[in-house]
């Protein structure tokens, strides 16, 4: 092995971090739902796919981008409300595992509907920023990655502000802590849940567009979300900050592992590396970096 190429290392690291921001965005969609209803929403991925697919299909049919965005957002909002009414409310008092399995069923429905509606081919998605690399102090960084990171960063900042400083955000946290008590003091649980799902839908839209532009809009997009799970384990299931940090860690270590360890195994370790990192982390810090340790009430 020759000299350690530091600029290459930084390149890989930066690429990984930027990728991590995108993971974080997907993970935040999960956190939103988990924070307000304790449900791990497995349908987040298919919702991502649905948003991207609908947008792309509208564009291909000649709809103007801003209008398409509005339509898709409206559709996501409607879907969120529909989910809340038809699936979540009937299952309101059941165990978290039951709710999770319901979201699995939901994932299948959304996936199937998305592809039935718009077809199963791969679509290219152009959001106006190309993947050209440009030079920053000798390190090559992708323009697209930077743009995506910027957008994601903005969204994250907005969401954090929302939760910390607005009344609605506060009621979200109340609902998550104790939905029964929250209902008792007059917080409209339906409204809160619906809002959470709409917000998650919006996040799914943005994430879907970003990921779709990067990978192409296709079925496997709904699997990207699976990477969000290790992020949640690392960062804590109910922490937006955790999702960011976890996302960065996952993105960076994954890329680095693929480049530096991968060749020993013939590559492809990106598939499972993040998961194994998360597992190892569980041994040391089960609640995640920023997650709150659940206090059991007995």
């Amino acid at each position, binding site marked *: 092995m020759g000299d350690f190429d530091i600029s290459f290392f930084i390149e890989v690291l930066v690429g990984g971090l930027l990728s991590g921001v995108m993971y974080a965005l997907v993970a935040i969609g999960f956190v939103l739902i988990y924070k307000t209803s304790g449900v*791990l929403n497995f349908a987040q991925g298919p919702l991502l796919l649905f948003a991207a697919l609908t947008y792309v299909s509208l564009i291909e049919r000649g709809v103007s981008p801003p209008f398409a965005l509005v339509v898709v957002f409206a559709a996501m909002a409607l879907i969120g409300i529909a989910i809340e009414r*038809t*699936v979540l409310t*009937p*299952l309101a008092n*059941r*165990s*978290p*595992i*039951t709710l*999770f*399995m*319901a979201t*699995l*069923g*939901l*994932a*299948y*429905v*959304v*996936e*199937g*509907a998305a*592809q*039935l509606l718009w077809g*199963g081919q791969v679509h290219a998605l152009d959001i106006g920023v190309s993947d050209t690399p440009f030079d920053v102090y000798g390190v090559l960084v992708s323009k697209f990655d930077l743009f995506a990171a910027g957008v994601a960063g903005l969204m994250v900042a907005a969401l954090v502000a929302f939760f910390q400083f607005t009344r609605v955000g506060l009621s979200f946290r109340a609902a998550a802590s104790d939905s029964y008590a929250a209902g008792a003091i007059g917080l409209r649980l339906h409204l809160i849940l619906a809002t959470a799902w709409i917000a998650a839908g919006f996040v799914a839209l943005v994430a879907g567009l970003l990921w779709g532009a990067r990978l192409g809009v296709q079925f496997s997009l709904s*699997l990207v979300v*699976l990477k969000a*799970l*290790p992020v949640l*384990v690392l960062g804590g*299931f109910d922490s937006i900050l955790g999702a960011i940090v976890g996302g960065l860690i996952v993105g960076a270590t994954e890329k680095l592992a693929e480049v530096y360890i991968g060749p020993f*195994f*013939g590559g*492809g*370790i990106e*598939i*499972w590396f993040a*998961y*194994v990192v*998360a*597992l*190892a982390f*569980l*041994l040391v810090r*089960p609640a995640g970096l920023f997650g709150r340790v*659940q206090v*059991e009430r*007995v």
Partner: protein
Amino acid sequence: MSRATFSPFAGWLFPVLAIALAVIAPPLLNSDYLFEAILLPFLALSLAGVGLNVLMGYTGQLSLGSAAFLAIGAYAAFNLNLRVAGLPLPVTIVVAGILAALVGVVFGLPSLRLRGFYLAVSTLAAQFFVQWALTKFPWFSNDSNSGVIDAPKLEIAGIGFVSPLGRYYFTLAVVVLLTALSARLVGVKTGRDFAAVRDHETAAKIIGVPVLKAKLVAFAYSSFVIGVAGVLWAFAYLRTVEPAGFNLDRSFQILFISIIGGLATIRGAFFGAAVMVVLPLLLARASSALAGDGIDSGSLDMIQRIAIGVLIIGFLIAEPDGLAALFQRFVNGLAGRVRPESSPAAR
């Protein structure tokens, strides 16, 4: 059969009748298609469902990586058969199952101490890792291209189980054996611990139920059974398998079998597997009847996805105890009895 008592002999009538039917009826129907396309996958998937039920329905732990253990069972048996001379088939099957159990414990151990969705993440890790390893390392598939393996003939002490009927009886025997073992397991003291962990883990820990041990045993046993199901899947049913066939969708398929069939019942797995095997066939028939060739296979797949998703949600909302419970009520209705105890509180 009441879940209230765990006597192994309660409700023996139904299983005995079912087994008798399973032994006598199929040969009379004399259809290879019946075996190859319906009964063999049904039996293998049912066994996988039984294994998963012990973990999820009885112990309340969530696993999303069942296909990984199917794969380990299949590939382990293949390699044992290939590399260890003169190993009798039953031994091969048991060892393959044990290997699946061991891998399960390795991936599961970090999460079994914890609550919530951590085991789900662990089992997903197993799912992705195993699929990758089987594709990446040619050793597992005897240097074949992209991990494809051809299963050897099924043979015990010179008696071959090669024809569809032969493979069916072999599979039936294994499934009956392990199902009986599983039913016995959930009725003994350890099985009671499983349910305690499921229903109120904290209280169980406080009153002294060995929670971690119970979870480990449940997970190991479940992985063992699913591993054996994998051997059946590869050796008796498909006979040519590749890692891609043990993907996330397969894991979900087994999960859905357990949910639709009824989680906390052994027999539920059979109901669920029946639905999952028959549904695609029914849909295909229905679509060609209704729309001729108008619906292509891609769309059919999507319709099937939607149908399964709706079924899952529907069952979780309306009948959380699954088809097994519906069936029980049907039988009670016929017998004119009204059960004094309601079905267990929805979890």
